[in-house]
């Protein structure tokens, strides 16, 4: 059993949206959209 695994240097861009920054913004935008959608949904039926 080795003391630790081989270091991983892979830090390339994500397979979509070009950069990690764009992907993070997309995830956070989706969260904002979901929160607004959920709020609108509950208001519509309350």
């Amino acid at each position: 059993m080795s003391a630790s695994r081989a270091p991983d240097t892979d830090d390339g861009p994500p397979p979509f949206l070009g950069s990690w920054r764009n992907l993070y913004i997309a995830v956070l935008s989706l969260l904002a959209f979901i929160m607004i959608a959920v709020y609108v949904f509950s208001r519509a039926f309350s």
Partner: protein
Amino acid sequence: MSTPDWIVLGTTLLVITLYGVYRGRGSTSVRSFLLADRSLGWGTVALSIMATQASAITFTSTPGQAYVDGMRFLQFYFGLPLAMVLLSATAVPKFHRLGVYSAYEYLERRFDPKMRLLGTGLFLLSRGLATGMTIYAPSLVLSVMLGLDVRWTSMLIGGIVIIVTATGGVKAVNHTHVLQLAIIMTGMLAAGVVLLMLLPPEVSVGDALSLAGAAGKLNTIDFSFDLENRYTLWTGLIGGMFVALAYFGTDQSQVQRYLTGKSVTQSRLALLFNGVAKVPMQFFMLLLGVLVYVFFLFAEPPLFFNPTAAAEARSGIHGESFRALESRYHDAVAERKAAAEAFVAARDAGATEPAGVARRLLMRTEQTVERLREEAGVIVSAGAAPNDSADTNYIFLSFVLTYLPVGLVGLVFACIFAASLSSSSGELSALATISIVDVYRRFLRPRESETHYMHASRFFMAAWGIYGIAFAQYASRLGSLIEAVNILGSLFYGTMLGIFLLAFYGKKVGGTATLVGALCGEAVVISCFLWTQIAWLWYNVIGCAVVVTVALFWTLAVQRQRPDVHAEQ
């Protein structure tokens, strides 16, 4: 449960076991056994992450919670995507580049052996106790609903987990997680579709949601800022983010999942997928509970959903009161049904004023029904074990057993078993990894052969599983200690997060300063727990803030006294 349902349940469990053994074959080195040779793609890792956090209780209590309390629990998950983004940007590349087996191995590299020991000790204490509960809690619910002895259900869950983890290691665990999550999602979606079909023909989906809204069950967002309120938008975004940061960033049961990714990119994508999928998934589970509530507006639900506890209350010393309560409940539910029917008829006719009248009547009768259920809970808790005083975990399964068609009942129970297996196996593999890497190899037997560590890894996997089963055998005798066990885990997360934040970003902060900060942080969190009404989600924020602040001040103070010393203290 009918014979076809037992066949569906048994076949599903057999398939999960065989699939786990099959996918885990070839784990001949410790690296493959504990880290799946870092060979997994982001899809497998993402589903494994989701399966580990989704315990059986998630799938039984979440719909039950929505039935009782509405959908406000959803807000708890709003902080999770924020945490996923932060961890993808920080923790994932750090853990990967250092090539560690465990999160606590990183603490020794960054600080010193005592910090590794502290992290390991806190994890083994909290997660070790929680693992017993992860097996016991669903075993209890399943035993009550299926009429089996809790010893058999816990042995079934624990036995399968031991077979899968001890034979195939983490690779088997992660691959079976994918299968288990697929079974869970299929079962829950099918239950949701059938539930909609079981609503009365005159009740459309729009009517059902309007009824839920009228009864106050669609309370998804609460903008108020109240430290004592567990579920508000702010508690969810801030407190929920800290919980998720601690759970996914410092808890080995999750860290181990994304360490199996074949690259930083794959692990990051897995976490981000979890961030994207988790909130909609919880929304669906809560909506399922709300629809069960709407269904029971038109079909009389039991006064108390735990059938065993209700039977004991009916025949116990308060039996007469309980039966009288059931009679009053029957009348109140009938009145509520009439109000619901009037509301639907008025809504469909477009009659605004009658709809408003029916809505107010529905709210009033709902309050009566809730009050009667609370009274029933008091009677049940007076005569039964403390764990039987709440019936939230039994609501969804009671609906499933009574109203779902043959075959689907077995599938939903298979979902619950699968969820129990997935969370237990994730925790078990993490406990075994910590035991072997951070304790056995590091402090007890540091210079043994690969074969020796391989055997030891299998031994620890099995040993933790046996411990979980043993815990479940005696858990019913622990009474209120069970609640203490549940609370215990939540008291350490803030401190652990503070330690890791200092490790990542406090470049001048050393081990001793972090240790002092951790002790202070834990003392403050325990004080909050004992002497304040602050909602537990805030403990993580408070604990983390105290650890970081004290450690920084300690470092500054030492530097002023001894300018030549920096990172050492």
